[in-house]
């Protein structure tokens, strides 16, 4: 860990966003994770994404469970709300917080241990309920915080630093999310910010549960030869299906792509996702085909990344529950407790 605080001085030409903030205003405390940890790169990508989206930090809530990955919300968005829950319980807390205050932007950060082992049930229900949140699993294939035991996402045949081979079948969280009915599913790599930052932005803008399985090498316990989650291995086997360009409101459309390779997705708030299709026959709207593609490439030893699936018309939990537009937390006594006459009326409809 680093003991010196990050200097306040910054590049004099650091760009400001529409709120007049610089990227530095979206930072948190200096990371105490091992130097070189993929998780820190993801934090940096989150910082950039929120800065570029011009989101006011105090309207953001970051939630996490337990693990090195779950520690990271301390290292970004220092001015946002935060809740560090118990192991594997981030989704429940996020669901509750979201129910109470639908106006905040929720970002849940979890690990492969946190979400694929102890919290697997919680993960499943956040996906199927379509809680409006960004759900990032910082997937290193090990329990980093407890010193490197295989997690449930470790691939069969992967070797631990001590030379033990994993024999148990691995959980592909992206595939699982598709099965569970998630409305936005992506996979990325901590070492590829060009891909990751737009994915996080799109996930924030998406209405409903937006899941990103982000492979994130653990430099201390899972970055050796024989690991399938190391920097080298992921770089060699990364197969992106698309490259994303997120266009919000007044943003100019800048990237130039060859005609015919572009697919445009309009989000509920009018933002546009421009997808440069790298795998020509891949469709981001076809859940079944997405699942097949992931599994097919997995069999060939490749890791499919990019925006894998986005539901045509997602409904989030509030829409499904038909809650009022005002956050429940902002309702006054009068609205919450309309009196005995109203109760009578309600009871009458149930008799």
């Amino acid at each position, binding site marked *: *860990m*680093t*003991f*010196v*605080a*990050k*200097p*306040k*001085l*910054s*590049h*004099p*030409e*650091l760009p400001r966003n529409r709120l007049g903030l610089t990227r*530095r205003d979206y930072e948190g405390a*200096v*990371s105490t994770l*091992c*130097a*070189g*940890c*993929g998780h*820190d*790169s993801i*934090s*940096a990508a989150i910082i950039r994404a929120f800065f570029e989206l011009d989101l006011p930090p105090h309207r953001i809530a970051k939630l996490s469970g337990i693990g090195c990955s779950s520690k990271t919300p301390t290292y970004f968005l220092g001015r946002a709300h935060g809740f560090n829950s118990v192991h594997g319980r981030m989704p429940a807390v996020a669901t509750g917080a979201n129910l109470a205050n639908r106006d905040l932007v929720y970002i849940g950060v979890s690990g492969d241990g946190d979400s694929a082992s102890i919290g697997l049930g919680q993960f499943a229900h956040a996906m199927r309920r379509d809680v409006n949140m960004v759900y990032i699993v910082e997937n290193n294939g090990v329990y980093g915080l407890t010193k490197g035991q295989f997690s449930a996402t470790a691939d069969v045949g992967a070797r631990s630093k001590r030379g033990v081979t994993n024999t148990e079948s691995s959980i592909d969280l992206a595939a699982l999310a598709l099965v569970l009915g998630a409305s936005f599913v992506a996979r990325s790599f*901590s*070492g590829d*910010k060009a891909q990751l930052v737009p994915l996080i932005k799109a996930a924030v803008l998406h209405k409903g549960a937006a899941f990103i399985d982000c492979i994130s*090498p653990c*430099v201390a316990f899972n*970055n050796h030869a024989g690991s399938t989650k190391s*920097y*080298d291995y992921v*770089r060699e086997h990364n197969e992106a299906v698309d490259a994303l360009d997120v266009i919000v409101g007044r943003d100019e459309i800048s990237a130039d792509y060859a005609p015919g390779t572009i697919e445009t997705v309009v989000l509920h708030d009018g933002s546009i996702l421009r997808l440069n299709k790298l795998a020509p026959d891949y469709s981001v709207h076809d859940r079944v085909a997405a699942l097949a593609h992931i599994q097919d490439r997995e069999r060939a030893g490749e890791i499919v990344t990019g925006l894998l699936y986005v539901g045509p018309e997602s409904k989030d939990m509030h829409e499904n529950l038909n809650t009022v537009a005002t956050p429940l937390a902002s309702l006054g006594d009068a609205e919450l407790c309309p009196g005995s006459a109203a109760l009578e009326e309600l009871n009458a409809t149930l008799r």
Partner: protein
Amino acid sequence: MLPTDIRNPDYFHKVVDCQWACPAHTPVPEYIRLIASRRYGDAYMLNWQSNVFPGILGRTCDRPCEPACRRGRVEKEPVAICRLKRVAADYKGDIRHRLPRAPVRGNGKRVALVGAGPASLTVARDLAPEGYDLVLFDSAPAAGGMIRSQIPKFRLPEEVIDEEVGYILDLGMETRFGTPITSMNALLAENYDAIFVGCGAPRGRDLDLPGRHVAPGQIHLGIDWLASVAFGHVREIGRRVIVLGGGNTAMDCCRSARRLGGQDVTVVVRSGFAEMKASPWEKEEAMEEGIPILNFLVPKEFRHGGGTLQGVLFEKVAAERGADGRRRLVPTGEPDLMMPCDDVLIAVGQENAFPWIERDSGIDFDRWDMPVVNERTMQSTHPKVFFGGDAAFGAKNIIWAVAHGHEAAISIDRLCRGEDVAERPPPLVNLVSQKMGIHEWSYDNEISNDLRYRVPHREHELALADITAEVELGFDEKLGLAEAERCFNCDVQTVFTGRLCIECDACTDICPTDCITFTGNGEETDLRRRLTAPAHDVTQALYVSGNLKTGRVMVKDENLCLHCGLCAERCPTGAWDMQRFLLEMPLASHACCNL
């Protein structure tokens, strides 16, 4: 771009902006660290080795290092490098036992030094410990040159001059003060092995306007008047004084006049305020002493009445850009301005004069009547005669005189040893890792957020009452320490080893000033556009690695690096290391002091 060759001493030297900008290349961050650890004597000796006059320069240097200081690029003001030098001088204690001495047996070579200003004194300092038999001439009664004769005592007390000039004279040399050299040919005939000319630019430029010679007692040439003040021949001036000129001499004239009875002292300058030659801090201090500076007024005539000076007539002008793009001053057509006064001080520049050098002495002069001098070796067209300081290329300042002196001393030493003068010895370079543990560095890498500290001043009234009362009181130890902490340690270099890098981005993510980018290689202009943060300043280098595993390169823009070491702390593989780069300029004598 090709991978950066960090073995070229110039590469990291340039990153230490202050040291690079200093004509004598003083290792600034090294002495600032010594101050921070309260090793004032060591800090002083390091300075003494490079710039010979730390106490004097710590009060008077033109400080080209400060505009260059990196700190000034990320916040409002640079580190007070110059005034920290004074801290070293003020708190050093007795260092005399650390000074070199001339060897008992000389080397048999005789060198004459003409003029005892900072240039000649530097040559003497560098050559005396090598056993040279030196003869130091000056027409003035004491050594110091313009340091003694021009710079007012309220900026530079006499004791400081005596002390630091004394350190040099005590090395052992023959002094012949009160002895003007009147003929170069005669001097050459004395068969010295080498002659160094450090006679300065001794003549003040005059203003030949109508009425100039009517009342000579009331119109003075600035530098002559300042010398008379310095030597105590002049002790008063009229109540109303006009100072003509906008350079540092004008500032010294007006502030001196203010202390000798001038109550209504005005500086009048032809050009605009921003174009004035005086340093910003000199202008500030003059104005703080209640001296107005009037701009865009061109003197036309000295007005008299009954044989006494009545005032100066000025034409009002404005700056205009001509068709050739050059700025020039054109009359505004408004009525002329008559400013009444009792005395005028003319401070409109200095001229070189070499009436004592016969033009057949073998020393060529150019069409401006300046000696032809090699900028690197300081040698004239006469192989045995060298020039330095203001005498070489016109009026500059003390630190340039010192830098010239060092180079001339090397040349003289090489000449006397029968070596090629054109060949120059390389600097001493040392690059050492500062890593002590996982998060421990042998330098203080925490970045201070403090703004520049002001040097405490003597109260106005007291300062104006006595021309010898020093205005600046200097930093006390506490302020000095706090100011020292503002230095980034730019000499602790970020050294990159590409084969260790796993391209994890940790360094890019942590860098507070967005210096580091991993990207595809390209031409410099193209690369500069593709970096994490804009890198327009092409005078600041890009540090480029060879190809990394992914085929990309690491590019670091040196411009705004805080040398905080966070990249090295966050690097999992030690691909970044913080290494202290110490560069010491070659000197004629390296046995020169006990560091």
